[in-house]
């Protein structure tokens, strides 16, 4: 009881004694207004970051983990600012928002900070103890090779793996991770030169770091053991075998470092270089393109005794160009297999039937057929027998791994086949089906050049750009056709931007061919004299499927090309973004009048922004009413003006020296840039009043609410039924609430482009659903034409435009002023298609007239 009396006392006292002074009220209002402005800015920034994230996910863009992290941070910080501002404006009401925010941001934080599962286990594992289930210790490549080594009747070189746990030990002991992350964070992937620089710096850091003594000892011991198994002083090949590559079918073909013929003395140094190979520029860019975080990848290193190769090559258990073909592809080269995958040497190609008895279906001999004198004394096995043996092995491995295999092999002086690597085949996303069913080449076509090998199917066109060195690479334009002598793995960073690839040599078994298929870039190899016949800047169309290069742009061929694959599909970074967006973008709080429009029902950051925006507007609008804010309260606009308009000066919207004690204000006294622009639109054409056809009925309701005769501003009608402007010099919030119909224009105009915006929202209206929809459609057609981003949802729509110069936005405000006044008439006649068209045409011609003088000024 006492409490109630106290409250009553307080209330009475507030009414009488402690009424705030004018100056205090102004200061209070300005503080709120500033908070309101900063809330709107934060709202803008948060929504913009959300839009960028959605765009990245749905438009198939490439984005990095750093992007996801930075955008998430931007959203969270701005939402936090909005909450702070709202609490400030509302005097602490809605404090429960903080709890909702904490809950959501904790969840987002968890997803962002998720650590990759760290592998454990020994530092050194001998190959014969490795199987395919150990990819999380030794990397995919070595795990597969260990598995191959265990298959009866198939031989591999002897060797051992240095595990990911070992490389982690090495990096941690030298405290390198923080510095590497710092360098990577600054990376701008668009700037190739900077990528090279940072890549070089990181690799130098790693190569120059000291190998921990315990690890060095273990590596040396393992080598001694290998010597006992093979021969003293055995040379080894050291190659990367990264962890986490297998995710989402990425190949990482040729992205890393391999070193051949390493002896004991250089084991340690080479090991460090192979580990550093994780940060070659091509590997960095590849990971980015495919959606891998650098921390997702750890380096294992394989150490295998060298095979003295007489012949080497690649066998595909199925044709990588078209898995439906009934043959295995075999590429053969004299010497070590390295040259095949490097794409530097021409190779012989054999196609062998997969069905028993295996037969050679086709052979293409591109190597010089006469072996040089030095080589004649080594017995060269008959090619046909060899090809059939390799096919048998390939089919065994395919069966064992349960998928078509891409196998690297070598044959030593004794004629024994050694398997060096086996992994799943990467097929072209475009299999060139039409090409194989029809004729392979149109005899009447006279192309500019012909090629021998379809490394990756498809058609691409663009200006040619010849690349021979790193300087050429840096100048490579987007969507150009890459022309090179040899398809070296070094060129792979350019595949991100190339429209097609032409090489004078190479086979489909090379690393660059694999990456082209993966990225969906058409690639034609074995194009003789390409560098002579194509000049920089020549526009060419590359038809990789039909193995031809044509001059100019060939629409007929391009019509066959397919859209590029979504490279990030299923990648860890994409999964992370998708998961995070669940807590950011869905909007559950859509209807402010619903009982669920409460701070406790905010489930996403978008909900919070929506809630804060709505409530802050409410708080601002009711300010004058709540505080008997006589001097600042709404003033009626008087003069030669149609209808009834009210203006609330938030800060500096009236000309200096304006008499602010009265109850009215004249347009001449207003200095709010956005309001004046809207006003221009409102007054540009005389308002005819509602169309006479519906003067009775619904029209008269609207008419009445607009033409309310209660002119005396001393008799305030509720705020919700007035047309009013909340203004400052740079800001205007213009609301039209007419019975069932609500429109709001809001704008901020200043010299800072980033702050400028115009937004328009429109809801409801006194009409049935069909009419409403038709009206919204009409409005959105008009606004889209004038560069607004329009979003429609049911019977409401929003249109936004931002970060444009003041003159441009002023024109948009005029349009909105015009539309809010005149679109009302449409309500009444919206049912008839003919009258809609008539109105649309009239609107367009009026708007053109409206904008004319301004464009002349500018």
């Amino acid at each position, binding site marked *: 009881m006492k409490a109630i009396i106290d409250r009553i006392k307080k209330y009475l006292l507030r009414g009488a004694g402690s009424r705030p002074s004018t*100056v*205090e009220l102004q*200061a209070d209002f300005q*503080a709120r207004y*500033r908070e309101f402005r900063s809330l709107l800015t934060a709202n803008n920034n948060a929504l913009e970051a959300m839009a960028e994230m959605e765009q990245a996910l749905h438009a198939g863009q490439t984005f990095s983990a*750093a992007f996801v*992290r*930075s955008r*998430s*941070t931007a959203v*969270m*910080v701005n939402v*936090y*600012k909005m909450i*702070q501002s709202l609490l400030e404006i509302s005097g602490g009401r809605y404090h429960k928002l903080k709890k909702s925010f904490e809950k959501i*941001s904790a969840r*987002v*934080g968890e997803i*962002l*900070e998720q650590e990759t599962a760290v592998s454990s286990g020994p530092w050194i594992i001998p190959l014969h103890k490795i199987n395919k289930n150990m990819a999380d210790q030794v990397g995919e490549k070595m795990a597969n090779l260990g598995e191959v080594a265990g298959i009866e009747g198939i031989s591999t070189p002897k060797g051992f793996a240095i595990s990911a746990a070992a490389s982690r030990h090495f990096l941690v002991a030298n405290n390198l991770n923080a510095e590497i*992350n*710092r360098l990577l*964070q*600054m990376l701008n992937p668009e700037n190739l030169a900077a990528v090279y620089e940072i890549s070089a710096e990181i690799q130098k850091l790693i190569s120059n770091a000291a190998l921990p003594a315990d690890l060095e000892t273990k590596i040396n011991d393992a080598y001694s053991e290998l010597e006992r198994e093979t021969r003293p002083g055995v040379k080894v090949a050291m190659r990367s075998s990264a962890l986490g590559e297998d995710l989402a079918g990425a190949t990482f073909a040729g992205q890393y470092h391999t070193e051949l013929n390493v002896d004991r003395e250089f084991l340690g140094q080479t090991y460090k270089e192979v580990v550093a190979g994780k940060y070659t520029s091509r590997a960095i860019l590849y990971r980015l393109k495919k959606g891998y975080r650098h921390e997702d990848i750890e380096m294992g290193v394989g150490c295998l005794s060298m095979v003295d190769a007489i012949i080497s090559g690649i066998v595909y258990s199925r044709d990588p160009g078209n898995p439906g073909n009934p043959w295995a592809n075999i590429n053969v080269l004299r010497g070590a297999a390295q040259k095949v995958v490097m794409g530097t040497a021409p190779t012989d190609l054999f196609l062998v039937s997969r069905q028993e008895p295996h037969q050679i279906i086709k052979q293409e001999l591109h190597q010089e057929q006469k072996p040089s004198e030095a080589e004649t004394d080594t017995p060269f096995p008959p090619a046909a027998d060899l090809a059939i043996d390799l096919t048998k092995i390939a089919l065994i491995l395919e069966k064992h791994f349960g998928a078509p295999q891409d196998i690297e092999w070598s044959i030593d002086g004794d004629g024994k086949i050694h398997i060096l690597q086996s992994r799943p085949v990467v097929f072209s996303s475009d299999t060139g089906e039409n090409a194989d069913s029809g004729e392979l080449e149109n005899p009447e076509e006279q192309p500019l050049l012909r090629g021998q090998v379809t490394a990756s199917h498809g058609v691409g066109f663009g200006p040619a750009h010849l690349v021979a060195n790193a300087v050429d690479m840096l100048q490579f334009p987007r969507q150009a056709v890459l022309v090179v002598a040899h398809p070296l793995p070094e060129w792979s960073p350019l595949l991100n931007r190339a429209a097609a690839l032409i090489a004078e040599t190479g086979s489909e078994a090379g690393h660059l061919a694999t990456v082209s298929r993966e990225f969906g870039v058409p690639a034609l190899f074995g194009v003789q004299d390409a560098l002579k016949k194509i000049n920089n800047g020549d526009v060419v169309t590359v038809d990789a499927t039909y193995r031809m290069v044509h001059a100019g742009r060939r629409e007929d061929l391009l019509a066959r090309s397919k859209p590029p694959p979504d490279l990030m599909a299923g990648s860890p970074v994409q999964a992370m973004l998708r998961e995070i967006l669940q807590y950011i973008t869905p909007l559950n709080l859509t209807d402010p009048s619903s009982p669920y429009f409460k701070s406790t029902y905010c489930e996403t950051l978008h909900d919070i922004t929506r809630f804060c925006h709505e409530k802050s507007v409410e708080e601002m609008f009711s300010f004058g009413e709540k505080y008997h804010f006589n001097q600042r309260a709404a003033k009626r606009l008087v003069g030669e003006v149609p209808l009834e308009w009210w203006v609330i000066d938030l800060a500096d919207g009236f000309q200096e020296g304006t008499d602010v004690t009265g109850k009215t204000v004249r347009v001449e006294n207003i200095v709010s840039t956005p309001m004046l622009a809207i006003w221009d639109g409102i007054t540009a054409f005389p308002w005819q009043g509602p169309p006479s056809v519906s003067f009775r009925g619904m029209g008269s309701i609207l008419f009445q609410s607009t033409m309310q005769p209660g002119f005396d501003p001393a008799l305030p009608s509720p705020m919700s039924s007035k047309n009013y402007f909340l203004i400052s010099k740079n800001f205007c919030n213009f609301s039209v609430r007419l019975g069932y119909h609500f429109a709001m224009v809001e704008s901020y105009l200043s010299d*800072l482009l*980033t702050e400028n915006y115009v937004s328009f929202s429109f809801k409801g209206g006194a009409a049935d659903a069909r009419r409403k929809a038709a009206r919204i459609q009409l409005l959105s057609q008009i606004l889209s034409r004038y560069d607004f981003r329009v979003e429609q949802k049911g019977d409401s729509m929003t249109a936004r435009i931002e970060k444009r110069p003041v003159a441009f936005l002023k024109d948009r405000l005029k349009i909105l002023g015009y539309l809010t006044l005149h679109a009302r008439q449409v309500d009444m006649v919206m049912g008839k298609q003919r009258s809609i068209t008539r109105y649309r045409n009239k609107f367009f011609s009026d708007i053109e007239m409206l904008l004319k003088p301004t464009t002349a000024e500018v």
Partner: protein
Amino acid sequence: MTLFNVLIVDDEQEFREVTVKRLNKRDLHCEGAESGEKALERISKGDIDVVLLDVKMPGMGGIETLREIKCRMPLIEVVMLTGHASVESGIDGMKMGAFDYLMKPMELDPLLEKLQEAYAKKKNQQDKIEMAQIKRDMARPS
């Protein structure tokens, strides 16, 4: 544009020096400090308006420095600078009263804009306090 005093706190010498130089060219009065400790020493003179503060520094970290600045000189506005964008440091800084945060590397114009906004806020707070002071003085019976 009003001239105001900015202190740039970052252990990364190159970034610090280049930014100081560029901001001075844009008519700001700008100085650098290479550590949190040095920054606290510098602000005690009382003429710094806005601090640009790197989150990650050896010794006294950015968040710790922010806490100290806000404790000693609550009117100074602090813009946090993060290299490795981490949600934690962004939000933590805001909770501790930072004005805003920026991510490295950034361009000069957005930086300038942010510093100006921060200064506007500081100026405003100052005016408010002065106003309250005047009011108190006037209310005092004389």
